[in-house]
């Protein structure tokens, strides 16, 4: 268990036990809805959510992670806890996700500063402990770098799509990946976001509190803005076109290529009987085997698992990616040609 000082709770409010904090301070949620002084914290909470919905980070009243007056520190924590109450009352997952990500990025700034703190060793130790306790990353300091075991690095970086996070683009030496404090903290942004959002999702939803109706209404109407629509061009991505061309020429398409093609077409709801003839030119074509394998991939035989179309990243590794500008940084061939409106 991490023990937090006052200013640390303000920096990392998601580590605090919300109910206990309010109780310790001698307040109830109802008071925040009615007491004109405390209402200020509700307004701040609403603002905190609105800013996050806009994709920005809430501007804290803390200066360098510290507050000049005790009440500023408290208000900072209250606004976080009340923001959660508002989100729970709103019940909109998109808002919760946006809020969690923004809060993660806010905490990220403090974590980075604490990690790089040369004058106060205890701040650095706390940041290292938070990262280890929450995300099981063992960080060591070596010269100007923070080093973490490769396997540890990969389990976190694997969800990043930017190329600079690929292991090949990292300083790797003797089993460790070398990172700056900024990169170390960036590595856990998503998980920090997930941690915060799961904490919010798992929190109990209170019944409506008098005085909270208006901000909740505001948030509900705001969240409707985030529903996205997509249009599809129906065109095949270049990797799929390439695979079909290879087969049409009667050349050998590797197993991984056949897997990609079949899972892609199955995901596009093409029936097995329509897909099978595509393979008839393959040097080792056998109709019975092909149908069996397609049914297996579709999940209609065998274990019942429906196999997913591999990601662009995996296809790159398998030499099956022939990206063109129209691919537009998609993560999976199935997203090709779908434009967000």
């Amino acid at each position, binding site marked *: 268990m991490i023990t937090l000082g006052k200013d640390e709770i303000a920096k990392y409010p998601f580590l605090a036990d919300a109910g206990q904090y309010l109780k310790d301070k001698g307040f109830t949620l109802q008071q925040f809805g009615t007491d004109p002084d405390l209402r200020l914290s509700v307004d701040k909470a609403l603002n905190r959510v609105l800013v996050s919905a806009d994709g920005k980070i809430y501007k804290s009243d803390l200066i360098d992670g510290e507050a000049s007056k005790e009440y500023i520190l408290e208000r900072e924590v209250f606004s976080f806890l009340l923001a959660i109450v508002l989100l729970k009352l709103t019940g909109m997952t998109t808002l919760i996700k946006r809020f969690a990500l923004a809060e993660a990025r806010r905490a990220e700034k403090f974590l980075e500063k604490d990690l790089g703190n040369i004058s106060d060793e205890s701040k650095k130790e706390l940041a290292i402990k938070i990262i280890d306790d929450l995300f099981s990353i063992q960080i060591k300091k070596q010269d100007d770098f923070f080093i973490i*075991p*490769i*396997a540890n690095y*990969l*389990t976190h*970086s*694997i969800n990043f799509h930017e*190329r*600079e996070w*690929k*292991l*090949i*683009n*990292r*300083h*790797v*030496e*003797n*089993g*460790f990946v070398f990172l700056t404090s900024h990169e170390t903290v960036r590595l856990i942004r998503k998980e920090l976001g997930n941690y915060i959002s799961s904490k919010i999702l798992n929190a109990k939803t209170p019944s409506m509190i008098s005085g909270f109706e208006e901000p909740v209404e505001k948030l509900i109407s705001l969240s409707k803005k985030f529903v996205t629509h997509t249009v599809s061009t129906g065109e095949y991505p270049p990797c799929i076109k390439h695979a079909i061309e290879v087969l049409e020429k*009667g050349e050998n398409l590797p*197993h*991984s290529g056949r897997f990609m093609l079949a899972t892609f077409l199955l995901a596009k709801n093409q029936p097995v009987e329509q897909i099978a003839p595509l393979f008839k*030119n393959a*040097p*080792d*074509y056998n109709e019975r085997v092909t149908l069996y394998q397609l049914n297996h991939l579709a999940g209609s035989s065998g*274990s019942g*698992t429906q196999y997913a179309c591999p*990601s662009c*990243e*995996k296809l*790159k*590794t*398998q*030499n099956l990616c022939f990206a063109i500008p129209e691919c537009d940084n998609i993560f999976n061939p199935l997203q090709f040609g779908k434009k967000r409106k």
Partner: protein
Amino acid sequence: MQEKDVKFLEDTFKKYYFDNFDLIHVPERTSEREFGFQKFNSGMIRHISLKDDKELHLLLMQNSPSDVYCSNAYYSFPNLPMKEKDWKEADLIFDIDSKDLHLSCRSDHTVTKCNDCNKISKSNDQCTYCQSTKLDNKSLPCKNCIEASKIEVSKLLKILTDDFGIEENSINVYFSGNEGFHIYVYNSPFQELGSRERSELVDYIMFKGAIPETFGMKKLKPNRSLLPNFEDPGWRGRFSKEVYGSKSNKSKIVTELMTNGYSNFQKNLEQLSNKIGAKIDPNVTMDIHRIFRLPGSINSKSGLTKLFCKDLQKFDPYQEACILNDNSIEIKANCPIEFKLKNKKFGPYDNEIITVPSYSAAYMICKNLATIP
């Protein structure tokens, strides 16, 4: 494959297993592994669990398999269907195959067998007799193929030890029994990694996906002092050795790189991948549910044994991994390529009846270039 050929190979393989039980063992943590085997002209039988060497030897004697496999993964219940096995972890494995190296010698020792008319020809695209495109490639790898594969193995070993920090004694290298090498890493910190994470290791090893920034080349205001040095660890150091060649050359080459700009630098990196990346088969390393050929077993693509390499540089597969017996046997051989086993030359044979030692007969029959008359 014809029945007579199957009978010959089954008997010869069985004799090998009976005479060489000391060469074929179950791996450590046996009861957590999945085993599988294939019989000639038949599909794969897998999801088998074994307790010890005795059970393995019994399986070999009872089933006369063409190939035997064992998982690199450890499961709670290896004999249950895949979904219920409860995957725990898997050794890191690598496959280096000379056929993936695109060597110029390959066309000299590769023939194609037509699936329609069964005739053998040298053409790679079309059967010269019936123009069918349904062809099977048959290659009898040469010394050059093996030496080139060894270079790739050495590249891989260097990355595993220097960059990944793996102890040398945790790495075992085996001749695959056909055209290359299988490398195992035991008890490493990578055991629990899933397929996606392993594909990142693959890209690292193959030098794929590198960006100019990693090598100090920026899009805006590039600075020559940020480019790699010889003594840099990992890929930056290997980049220096390959691209600069010598220390005296460095300054000139750096100037060239700076003048050619960012996008040319990116192209250079892509081309370098072929030269300095270790050419492993990505699919093998990414697969965490694979059953991989069991060390000590025979590879039915060649009749040679998957054998542990004590000294990789000196290792000669056509001498050391050719362990089948030398009883004479008459075969009808249609093998247009000369090859060497146990220091003895064989071929070329043009549809002729010959008498050769069993190991040589098995080699040609496994390659589909001979039959028992």
